[in-house]
């Protein structure tokens, strides 16, 4: 076969250019979705320009907007990273929601129990507690899949429901805020975390806290884990070909379970970070749908930890901006939900175009070179080939 790689410098230029376009394609899809939204807005008698202006301002156009976006991106990124690790081992973790909830519960319980500890100690312990709990919640489907071939989509969906009920139970009895009992209101929420366990806010008067930096660091860590460690190599090998991995002496079942545990740890950590950085206690709706949005982030990020960073920020911005828009033009929240759904559908469809372009680029690289241009029969005389 005649391989004709483009000359390096020309190649690199073309490649970088192409990468830019590829990056823009999804944005184009977002725009397309928003245009559909604009029509609906018009039908509702709202001014799309005003609406989308607000959307952008709400997401990126103001300090409060940016900080809010980043605050939202934090759990999204953490969950996204978790989903990525599992996905690389061919385990689809739909259980982020539940893992996040138990993470939040464990972190809270732990920091309340150890409230005497100094901050430098309490902070990491609290976070760790959340991560461990999440990991434990991931271990169950992980083991079920590894040992009993129980499909993880089923088990994680079920584990989500179980986690929520567990929260309901703890928040109305064992972990119920004493203040609520005193007031007789019994609203299901935990007591507030000791201040020592609060994550510092990076911008005062906003929800943007240092957890975001932690998430960024972890993104790099996960990338290193996947491509620079033997464990990461094993995870990817198991994901791509269990039979080859087995032949290579890799304990497939163990790796599968491990990937799920790591995934759960990150989702649990997301829960802990939400509690420590934002709510300072477990409240209803703590999971906030991050378990699902995180999957979207992971896949938008091309299942790459670093790619997940922009994905989390953009998707977070989208959600935040959409809320701002809802407030500004006062449309039903449902419109926003539908719009987000449309955006997801359009963006995920646009990746197809990206692939197509990549393919086309390569076959252009395969255009006949001068040597073979005459093509046709090759003279049967010996033409040494090596």
């Amino acid at each position, binding site marked *: *076969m*005649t*391989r*004709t*790689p483009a000359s390096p410098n020309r190649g690199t230029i073309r490649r970088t250019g192409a990468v830019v376009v590829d990056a823009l394609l999804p944005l184009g899809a977002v725009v397309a979705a928003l245009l559909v939204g604009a029509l609906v807005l018009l039908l509702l008698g709202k001014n799309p320009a005003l609406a989308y202006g607000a959307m952008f301002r709400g997401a990126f156009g103001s300090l409060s907007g940016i900080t809010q976006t980043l605050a939202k991106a934090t759990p999204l990124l953490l969950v996204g990273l978790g989903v990525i690790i599992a996905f690389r081992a061919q385990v689809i973790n739909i259980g982020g929601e539940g893992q996040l909830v138990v993470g939040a519960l464990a972190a809270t319980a732990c920091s309340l129990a150890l409230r005497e500890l100094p901050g430098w100690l309490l902070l990491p312990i609290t976070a760790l507690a959340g991560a461990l709990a999440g990991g434990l919640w991931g271990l169950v489907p992980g083991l079920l899949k590894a040992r009993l071939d129980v499909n993880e989509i089923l088990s994680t969906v079920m584990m989500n429901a179980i986690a929520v009920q567990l929260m309901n139970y703890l928040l109305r009895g064992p972990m119920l805020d004493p203040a609520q009992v005193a007031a007789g209101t019994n609203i299901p929420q935990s007591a507030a975390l000791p201040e020592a366990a609060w994550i510092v806010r990076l911008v005062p008067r906003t929800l943007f806290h240092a957890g975001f930096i932690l998430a960024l660091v972890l993104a790099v860590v996960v990338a290193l884990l996947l*491509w*620079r*460690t*033997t*464990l990461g*190599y*094993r995870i*990817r*090998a198991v994901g*791509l*070909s269990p*039979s*080859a*991995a*087995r*032949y*290579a*002496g890799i*304990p497939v079942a163990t790796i599968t379970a491990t990937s799920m545990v790591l995934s759960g740890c990150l989702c649990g950590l997301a829960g802990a970070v939400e509690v420590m950085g934002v709510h300072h206690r477990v409240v209803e709706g703590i999971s906030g749908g991050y378990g699902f949005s995180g999957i979207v982030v992971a896949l938008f990020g091309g299942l790459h930890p670093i790619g997940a960073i922009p994905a989390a920020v953009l998707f977070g911005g989208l959600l935040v901006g959409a809320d701002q828009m809802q407030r500004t033009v006062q449309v039903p929240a449902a419109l926003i939900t539908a719009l987000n759904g449309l955006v997801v559908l359009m963006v995920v469809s646009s990746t197809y175009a990206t692939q197509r372009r990549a*393919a086309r680029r*390569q*076959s252009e*690289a*395969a*255009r*006949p070179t001068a040597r*073979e241009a005459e*093509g*046709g*029969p*090759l003279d*049967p005389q*010996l*033409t*040494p*080939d*090596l």
Partner: protein
Amino acid sequence: MVAAAQQAAPTISSLELFNITKRFPGVVANNRVSFEVRAGEVHALLGENGAGKSTLMKIIYGLYQPDDGQILLNGQPVTISSPQDAIARGIGMIHQHFMLVPSLTVAENVALGLKSSRGMRLDLDVVAAKVERLAASYGLRVDPRAEVSRLSVGEQQRVEIIKALYRGADLLVLDEPTAVLTPQEADDLFRMLRQMREEGRALIFISHKLREVLALCDRVTVLRDGRQVGTFPTAGMSRGELARLMVGREIAAPHAEDRAPVPVGPPLLQVRGLSSSAGAGGPALREVSFELSPGEILGLAGVSGNGQRELADVIAGLRPSSAGEISLGGAPLVGGPGERMAAGLSYIPEERMRDGAIMDFSVEENLILRDHTRPPYARGPFLDTARVSTVCRELITRFAVKTPGPQTPIKSLSGGNIQKVIMARELAREPRVLIAAQPTRGVDIGATAYIHRLLLDMRARGGAVLLISEDLDEILALADRIAVIHDGEIAAIMPRAEADPERIGLLMAGASTESLSH
């Protein structure tokens, strides 16, 4: 099922290709290739791995559209837009990697895509009856009700052929049909192909085995680097000539001195009374015993699915044994694949694309597949990426792997080169014992010769090789001793000198040693 009349007079008199060009990302698979096949001939298509044979055939079958060029059927220009279209025109194809649905029965696989005589309702009983009739007329044994996943490779191929005949194929493409067949199965196949030729069908036959080509085919078209070297009558052609046309240089087949007897020491690998439970599509091992000495190649001959894969897997630690023991260099060989590898056992698995390599990994990543936790590749829990790439580049050059680079996904390499990567990996760690299962299946002659040389080098270095192959020529060419396995039992072990293909073939087919002796 309503299928085009199969026994009626063939409707295809000739198929011609003109200046066909087909590009793939980074590759020109076919570059202005012209080619013609006529009714009543078997036309061979030769070429190294990646020469463009399968691509050309996939174009004929409507799986790919040519970027350029023209197709004439019976002199009329046609575009073959899809397999459906090809089938309708009387073209059938037996793919190199079988196109069967494992979870379905034979009858269901045949019925797939055809109209039912009962409209929406399946008429599998009708199909089954027809299949049996068809099979009988070609002397094939096929159970229409068997689930395909349970069939041996040979049986699966018969199903493929039946599928094509059932659809009344007048032009039949066979892409490396013998790569997976035993001599007996191959002979059956040739008989059937000759019969089809008599019936006036046109046949295109792809193989890397030149002996077969010369024995079966009327004309041969040779491809090289996606381009056409030419079309020649096989009459009066020699294997050497064909090889040169394909490769563009002399191929050094292993010479006698390569197999000069090496001082054979005490047994290195000892297998005693090894038994195991039956595996998927394979029998249980029963009391398997043999010894393997340093500087020796033991050839294990057998019809596919008679326990070769099970035996290799058990020795390699991929499958539990129910009884018996294995020792390597005196020490019992136990534990998982990793431990046994560390003990000095290397293993080239039969299923190259499934077990031997990870198709979506790069060449480099595949080179470290089994050693990634050990130096030089690993430092503690970390991969030493710098060392990895230096060592891998080294291996790629040392084992003459044809690849754009270490980072290329291995799936875009030819079968032969994929196999070279695996050989490189398994030999680089300088094992004491090597199990090589079907090391050259579907690999072109150039690569085959190279792989054979590697095995002989290992032998010369005093290594021990268990060569599992369904290609008797290969075994006869390389082995010092030959063992025959049938239905999970070792039927006989004999020195190369006493081995004649006749006898081995019969043993493989299940004849007992006694019945042979008198």
